[in-house]
């Protein structure tokens, strides 16, 4: 086991030029060729998707360059706010069932879960010489947490609303014999919590075996020692797991309070399905 004593040769990462990125863009021609050969008629969509990838990421890059250079706490808070609002909007857009006032539940769930967990990690786990608002840590961490919490919230709220609609008869037959609103909706809530948190638990089970997480890949490419990258990844996994659970429970409980009132009545008329065709 003598190789463990040997220092790992760490190379500086290769600075990419735009020409090199263009070389990578050749790869997307594979998709285009497949689409044309098999008459999938996806060329247009593919073109738009590839274009958006480039434009969106470049714009984010510019904003990040600016915030990283500026290093002011209010710039970080401001960017974090924008990111959170986009996440909330994404949740609402992903819904298959809507109810009046659902934006409030997803908004509070998203803010509280992502910001409290990120704050905990920045203030206690990554406690060091750098101030808490150092953009290098705050922005990517918040982004990872938002991305996962978003899925939990969207899945949880959809599952909850859907089971309320599907099990309306059972819920009402329980309410009619004296169940409290908690007793009547317990099954729907448990189902929604499981649905919302299952993906993150599954990814904790297979992380590293099936694929390397994107963040860890990035750190390895940029020259970080593998064990360090792994430590960071473990922190990230626990962060996202707890934020997802917190976000899901807040979203489901928030939905519960919108759909059942204090008189233990089910307000089914607040729920309506989302017509995707009308939205497009």
């Amino acid at each position, binding site marked *: 086991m003598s190789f463990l004593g040997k220092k790992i040769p760490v190379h500086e990462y290769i600075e990419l030029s735009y020409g090199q990125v263009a070389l990578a863009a050749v790869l997307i021609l594979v998709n285009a060729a497949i689409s044309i050969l098999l008459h999938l008629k996806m060329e247009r969509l593919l073109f738009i998707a590839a274009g958006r990838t480039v434009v969106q990421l470049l714009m984010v890059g510019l904003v990040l360059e600016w915030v990283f250079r500026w290093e002011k706490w209010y710039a970080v808070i401001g960017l974090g706010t924008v990111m959170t609002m986009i996440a909330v909007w994404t949740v609402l857009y992903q819904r298959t069932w809507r109810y009046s006032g659902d934006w409030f539940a997803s908004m509070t769930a998203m803010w509280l879960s992502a910001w409290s967990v990120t704050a905990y990690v920045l203030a206690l786990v990554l406690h060091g010489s750098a101030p808490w608002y150092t953009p290098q840590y705050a922005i990517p961490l918040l982004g990872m947490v938002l991305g996962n919490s978003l899925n939990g919230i969207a899945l949880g709220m959809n599952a909850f609303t859907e089971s309320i609609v599907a099990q309306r*008869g059972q819920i009402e037959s329980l309410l*009619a014999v*004296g169940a409290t609103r908690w*007793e009547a909706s317990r099954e729907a809530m448990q189902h929604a919590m499981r649905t919302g948190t299952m993906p993150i638990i599954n990814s904790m089970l297979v992380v590293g075996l099936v694929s390397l997480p994107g963040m860890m890949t990035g750190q390895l490419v940029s020259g970080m020692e593998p064990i360090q990258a792994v430590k960071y990844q473990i922190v990230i996994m626990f962060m996202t797991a707890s934020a997802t659970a917190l976000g899901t429970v807040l979203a489901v409980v928030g939905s519960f309070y919108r759909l059942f009132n204090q008189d233990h009545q*089910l*307000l089914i008329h607040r729920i309506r399905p989302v017509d995707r065709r009308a939205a497009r």
Partner: protein
Amino acid sequence: MLDAIDLTRAKDGDPPLLIHRIRLSLRAGDRLALIGPSGSGKTILLRALAFLDPLDEGAIFWRGEQVGGNRVPVFRSRVVYLHQRPDWTAGTVEQVLREPLSLEVHRHRAFSRDRIVGWLSRLGRSASFLEQSTRDLSGGELQLLALMRIVQLDPNILLLDEPTAALDPTTTSAVEGWLMDWCDQAADRAYVWVTHDMVQATRVSRRVIRMERGELVAPTATPSGLPQSRRYPSQE
């Protein structure tokens, strides 16, 4: 026991009123039949009496106290609404019967198999009915199960929404007799029975109320010539 004052429900606050300023009092021993054309608001009224939907106006008083908030579950364990189309999670008949007993308000009750078996034999079913899966039950058998499920909770008032609509004539008359007996077995019991059948209405009730377009109209007199139940003479 139950006083409903000016119950009003409008559809999303718009003019077409579902029920309009309904006043109704139920006293111990009341056997009330509610008739009226489809869409006249009978189901909405029964649901309103069980406080299952938010009221736009009006209030419900149970033994003199207004119903609301944390008093609601206890109230609904006393005044039970029977859905027109019962719906439960899949399971055996016994599981469905036991389900309400796990609720906080009914936790002090024990499941009484003997009592259920007694009712079953009166309704022409054997004890093996308890082991059947609810998926294999007919519409009529589901109604019997729904009735036993709530009667076993010893409520004071039953709000019955067409409880025999899916039953054959023999079972219908068995159910009528069973529920009338249930009502007479204790002093503080009453029911409201929604039906489309005027003959049934006069058979099972002491008072018939007619509903039209969301309002109660003057009690209909029993039409002469209709057969009165011989087995259950009026006890007034």
